[in-house]
């Protein structure tokens, strides 16, 4: 075999062994502990901050609104679905204000006529004709519409 082919073969062997070496060195220790992933990632992900804290977190300070909502038509909606993620507000309610979505367009996202959305799931109204000069929250309490 000519010299250059021998060297080529050698280069190939070096590259493959380097790859195997790297593979050995770079595979994380907890890999494969539970499945085809890094076992430690379970704890790391669980430790990430939670953005949507859930309706129960609001009870301690807004109990009237929570109980009001639970009796009305919007009982199935989550507070944060309308107000946005509450993780900062819960910690520091004075500084971290949530959005108050009181525009007509906001309510229209769910209540405007939309042929693709089942009427059973949510009541739809021709909002262009439904008191179109005023905000919805003037007449409907968003927490108990």
């Amino acid at each position, binding site marked *: 075999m*000519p*010299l*250059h*082919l021998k*060297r*080529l073969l050698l*280069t190939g062997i070096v*590259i493959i062994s380097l*790859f195997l070496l*790297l*593979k050995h060195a*770079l*595979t994380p220790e907890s*890999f494969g502990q539970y499945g*085809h992933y890094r076992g430690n990632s379970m704890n790391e992900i669980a430790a990430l901050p939670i*953005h949507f804290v859930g309706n129960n977190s609001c009870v301690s300070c807004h109990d009237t609104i929570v109980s009001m909502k639970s009796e009305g038509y919007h009982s199935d909606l989550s507070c944060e*679905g*309308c107000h*946005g*993620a509450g993780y900062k507000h819960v910690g520091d309610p004075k500084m971290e204000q949530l*959005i108050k*979505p009181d525009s007509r*367009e*906001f309510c229209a*996202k769910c209540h405007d006529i*939309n*042929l*693709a*959305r089942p009427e059973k799931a949510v009541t739809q109204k021709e909002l262009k004709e439904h008191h179109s000069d005023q905000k919805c929250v003037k007449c409907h309490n968003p927490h108990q519409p």
Partner: protein
Amino acid sequence: MNPEFEHLYQALSKVDGFIYPNEIELSWSILIVLYPFITGLVAGAFILASLERVFNVKSLKPTYVIALLTSFAFLLVATMPLIFHLGQPLRAWEIMMTPHLTSAMAIFGFVYLWYLMIVLLLEIWFDYRYDLVLWARESKGIKKWMYKALALGSDDISPKSLKLDDKLGYIVTVIGIPSAFLLHGYVGFIFGSIKANPWWSTVMMPIIFLFSAMVSGIALVMVLYIVINHLRKQKIDMLCLDTIAKYLFYIIIIDFTMESLDQIHRIYEAEESFEIISLLISGHLNFTLLIMQVGLGMFLPLATLGIIQFYKPEEKLRKLIYFITGILVLIGIFFMRWNVVIGGQLFSKSFLGFTSFKLSLIGPEGFLMASIWLVVPFFILAFLLWLFPPWKKTPVEH
């Protein structure tokens, strides 16, 4: 998650009709459009090179090395859009280190490596080895050492070893053709195998990707050949250019037939997804699909190249027509990738609604970022042409 979508209101304003929450934001944007585009250029350019080497189309000789180097330059960049699309680019190597054998993407890593290391590098190396040795003897300074290292320090240019090189190079090219088909067919497979998406899921996908890859790769080499000769103020070999254009014409016809077959099949089957797909084509995709991909990228080149097969205008004009046609074809294929990748994410898998997509200028998934990855291969190619000038190669008979 995009922070502005912490609020339902902004998210819903992108949407028409009904859509599942995870479909509102497109997770694959322009960088994922570039990935099949660039990979296609690689496979296409390589197949043009093998036309000369394996199928003995002698008139393509002047483009053989250019096509190989183009293929190589683009292959080096092919994975970059993917890596930069990842939220965690530094984890990209994990796909190779802990490969999951049922993951289509993980296997792509190996298909890619096979193609890069075994096919392209080896073929270029065997083709250039004789010149590397000669150049190492002639040049001085750092260049001398570079050539010497690339020749693996061997000085052996006896006729016997050259003959062996030629034989091995030929074998590599023969292996290379199915590998190039595999490389790009595989990209099509990654999309075609997503059975939840009716716009992607068709067995035709690998074949369509393959032929559109050939179309784009051949067009790119044609354009590059014109540009390189223009920059070097050399007379262009018109026979070669005409031959490339002829093959381009044939392959566009095949590509067009395949894509039409796919569409006809869809229209005739008219599955439950048909309605949303026809809305997609007539609505969100009407500009990028009907005008850019089919009109400018396919019909116009077919018409001009078709006319040129029968009536050949004088050289200067013909060169200009080839140049413009090549660019149009490249744009057309880019939009073909766009329509597949972006189009497939615009409609809801409930078939009841659409989301929308707006390309941003800056940012990690923006237009500028994409432009960078489209321009870098040309710089790599320029460097390769400087280091390994094909016009200074000693001509050899294969």
